[in-house]
């Protein structure tokens, strides 16, 4: 991951559910309630940049026989819920991923780092590759006709999350570059 990468930073702002494991007087504002202490057991949606390290930081055990615990325990975000996974399993193309999260796969890889979820991992990979084939088709067409808007191109782009948009752009630029070169050569024909 790159420190200055804008997409990585935006992915870091995606929220995940966190359950606090202790009372914290100063942090009521995280639950939109600055006047009150944040109670143990409260679940708050926190951005990854905060959630991940709060979950990973071991607070020191208060007595010798107590095990080290985290400040918060994490849960999977709604975009990786069972419902979404079932829908993707049924038909990867039918889900507008961008509505789930602008950084759907970015968030997914971060969560897979934290949770051992083999099935989610497999579903995400299959989804990515299946949809990539679709992206290649649309982008190739758009690149060769030099038109993004026609044939539902814009509509198609709207449903793509960030990784997919980048992939679309690469496929589009490749098709366009090769077409432009070809036309440039042919212009010289007598």
């Amino acid at each position, binding site marked *: 991951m790159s420190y200055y990468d804008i997409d990585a930073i935006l992915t870091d702002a995606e929220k995940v559910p966190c359950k606090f494991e202790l009372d914290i007087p100063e942090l009521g504002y995280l639950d939109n309630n600055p006047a009150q202490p944040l109670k143990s057991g409260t679940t708050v949606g926190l951005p990854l940049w905060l959630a991940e390290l709060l979950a990973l930081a071991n607070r020191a055990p208060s007595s010798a026989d107590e095990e080290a615990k985290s400040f918060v325990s994490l849960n999977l975000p709604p975009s990786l819920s069972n419902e979404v996974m079932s829908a993707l399993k049924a038909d990867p193309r039918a889900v507008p991923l961008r509505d789930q999260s602008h950084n759907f796969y970015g968030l997914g890889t971060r969560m897979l780092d934290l949770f051992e979820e083999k099935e989610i991992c497999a579903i995400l*990979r*299959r989804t990515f590759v299946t949809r990539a*084939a679709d992206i290649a088709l649309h982008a190739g067409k758009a690149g060769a006709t030099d038109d993004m808007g026609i044939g539902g191109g814009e509509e198609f782009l709207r449903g793509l999350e960030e990784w997919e948009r980048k992939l679309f752009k690469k*496929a589009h630029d490749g098709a366009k*570059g090769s077409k432009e070169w070809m036309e440039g050569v042919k212009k010289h024909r007598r």
Partner: protein
Amino acid sequence: MALSLPSGLVPTEVAFLCEMEMITIVPRQRLESIPMLSGKTPALRPPRRADLPLWLALLLKKQRRANIVPPPWLLPASLQEIVHLETNYDPEAFSPPPPPPMRSDGRGVARPYATTTRSGNEDKELILAPPFLPSCTQDAPSGYLPYHWLEIAETLLAHAADDIPNAPEVRALLRDLQEVRAAKMRASTRHLEGGGGVLNIRGVGAMELAESRGFVLGVVDGVRKLGASAEAGRREELERGDDEDESDDDMGL
């Protein structure tokens, strides 16, 4: 940011590279040797043929100072053979690239085209590859598409169509080739999901590569990132397996 180009050569750069391919010409005028940066050009004496880099051959052609001898693989019969190969032989693989050109070392041994270089005290061989192999000269084999096939063919059709026998048929055969090979390129993405470590696409051409590079590598990298946790888990298990094997050995001792 000093460079706003994507990683990997784009089509215009590939075309530039292809212009370094050697091609055979028949001079129509005498021309003395020219001291170029990359070495002296051969003196041109009509009708003796000579091999020159494509960009220079085109310059001579445009000035009607020379005609171009199309490479044997670009003749209709050869292209028909390749179309047949592409469609009937293997539905997935590209037709094979030309065999590496060899030449005699004067002592009875056939050797690949290479340059000997020296680093420190040892001689090191630099094996040549396109565009520095004679894969588009009159001596090139027919029935094989070289790495820069599409760029060479299109460029020659654009600037030297009158030197190519039956140019309309050549054009039509090239369209067929482009189509059947594009389908193969698309199909190769199916193998990318597999998550293996090596994928061989022998026979692919430079322009085909330039067009698909960003997308193909994007998919490979995406699959890797999505599978990173699974891969790490697999490696841990492997290591643990190795450790167990070792401890078994220890017990055996």
